[in-house]
């Protein structure tokens, strides 16, 4: 697949470690979704998580932003360590995400969905809003402008007033990315952003992800099944299998890793 790769030289070169997980274990009843997983994510990096179905990839993202709470381990964000995260606090610390099964607000328009992404930046209280008075009104306008920038960036102007439930799947994925971007996150967690898309839509999505990384310097953690995409756009890759980390490194290193090849070929250990 041919997509525009990172600009060279990169506007935001990969920096220090921003986020790391250390010895994280998560289980549901008897099922061990994650066992003793450690890895780190550097600033401005595109970090991919791959692995067969049920490997624990989505669980890992859910741990990173506080949807799941691991039984063991530590999460370190900018030097602060947490036993687990709380969703809305993670959001306040600059983590935004999209979900494997689109989690948009079905009853709302595209515009309103994206505007919710900016809720943490809004300061007016509900009384001011009820009166549509001063700060509340000004704020709506300021954030509308910000949201329109995201809408232009992702090329979804034509559907801004459409209820998201009426959009085709590919566009819904894009709106979900828009909602995450509207928060101006430091770290963006993307759970299979290209799943179920046709080739053209995939290429668009790839371009958007790289553009986000290049323009805003957003650190990206991405789960993806399409190996071509992963190898093309990521700086480093973590490989999970049955909840354990079996590989970690640059795309070239991963390509040559025997354990990874075995896992993908379905060799039993």
């Amino acid at each position, binding site marked *: 697949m041919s997509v525009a790769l990172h600009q060279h030289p990169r506007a935001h070169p990969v920096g220090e470690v921003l986020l790391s997980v250390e010895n994280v274990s998560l289980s549901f009843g008897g099922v061990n979704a994650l066992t003793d997983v450690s890895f780190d994510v550097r600033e401005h990096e595109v970090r991919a998580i791959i692995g067969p179905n049920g490997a624990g990839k989505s669980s890992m993202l859910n741990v990173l932003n506080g*949807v799941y709470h691991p039984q063991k381990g530590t999460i370190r964000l900018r030097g602060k360590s947490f036993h687990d995260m709380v969703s809305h606090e993670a959001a306040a610390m600059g983590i935004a995400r999209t979900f494997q099964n689109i989690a948009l*607000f079905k009853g709302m328009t595209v515009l309103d969905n994206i505007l919710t*992404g900016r*809720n943490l930046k809004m300061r007016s209280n*509900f009384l001011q*809003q*009820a009166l549509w008075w001063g700060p509340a009104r000004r704020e709506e306008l300021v954030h509308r*402008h910000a949201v329109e920038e995201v809408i232009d960036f992702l090329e979804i102007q034509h559907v801004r007033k459409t209820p998201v439930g009426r959009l085709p799947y590919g566009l819904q994925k894009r709106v979900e990315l828009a909602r995450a971007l509207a928060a101006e996150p430091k770290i963006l967690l993307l759970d299979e952003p290209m799943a179920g898309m046709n080739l053209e839509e995939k290429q668009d999505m790839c371009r958007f992800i790289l553009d986000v990384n290049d323009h805003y310097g957003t650190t990206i953690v991405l789960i993806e099944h399409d190996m071509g995409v992963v190898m093309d756009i990521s700086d480093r890759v973590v490989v999970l299998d049955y909840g354990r980390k079996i590989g970690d490194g640059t795309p070239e290193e991963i390509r040559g890793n025997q354990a990874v090849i075995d896992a993908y070929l379905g060799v039993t250990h």
Partner: protein
Amino acid sequence: MLYREAGQFRSTYAEDMQIFPIRQDRIALMLLLAVGFVVVPMVATQYWFSALLIPFLIFSLATLGLNILTGYAGQISLGTAAFMAVGAFMAYNAQLRIPGIPILASFAIGGLCAAAVGIVFGLPSLRIKGFYLAVATLACQFLVLWTINRVPWLTNHSASGVIAAQKIEILGYTFDTPASKYLLTLSIVALMALAAKNLMRSETGRAFMAVRDMDVAAEVIGIPMMKTKLLAFAISSFYCGVAGALYAYCYLGTVEPEAFVLDISFRVLFMVIIGGVGSILGSFLGAGFITLVPIFLNLGTTFISDRFDIEISHALVSNMELITFGGLIIFFLIVEPNGLARLWQIAKEKLRLWPFPH
């Protein structure tokens, strides 16, 4: 005038964010207000005011309140009548016990007390949803009525639990005729509807809808679950509380706790369902519809019995009322869950494109 959006270009986001971006909608609303404030008072009879218009407006307000909670924030409640009762009885107590307090301040106190009770009974919503939450709010219904019956202070030691609403006086003017009470009610309801509309198109409204549509995603983008749900209960109960106070002061006059039985909660819930879940306009349509149906049924049966000389018993008429409501609710739940408001919207969309549907 044709209902057209064509040719009305909005060149700034500020214009696009007006409360009614389409000119015809603004004109229609102005006309409606003119009719409500000027024409109706000139033509309506006493009976219209006290049997139709005032209850319609008060129930619109209560429906709006429940719609904020159920339609926008997605939290079901059967406690509407209880919140209305709190509003009525606390407004009465404020008027009784705080010397010289303006009547509107008493209504506000009634609303605020209802909001406080709403927050308390909204606490279970942090843990439970749907059916179980409905049952928890049902507890509120019984507990509130029980308390009013048992605590003599609340009814000023009235032996029967009946209170008589004090007279309504604002800036020296006494609202004692049905027409004046109608105008007072209309003013309050119009202002509160405007506030609700503003709130629902701002951050608070979006947070409510986000929690309703997908609570995990809402938390992940930073919407605080607890604050949002409790705020929904508080605002909704405030609206119901003010509606209750108006029910006591502008409609009933003398009030017993039994005026706020569970039946009323269900009636308001039906208004939400028939009018349109999550729609301000729908709240008015639903309330209007349910207030008017019994009257039209009555007229219809009187007409039939006069015309064909058949005896139609009152029991039959009231049963027909129930059957009609039941049928309509099933119809709306199955066919058009977004109620009359959605039907209206579809009609508008058709009209907007007419005569060229493509």
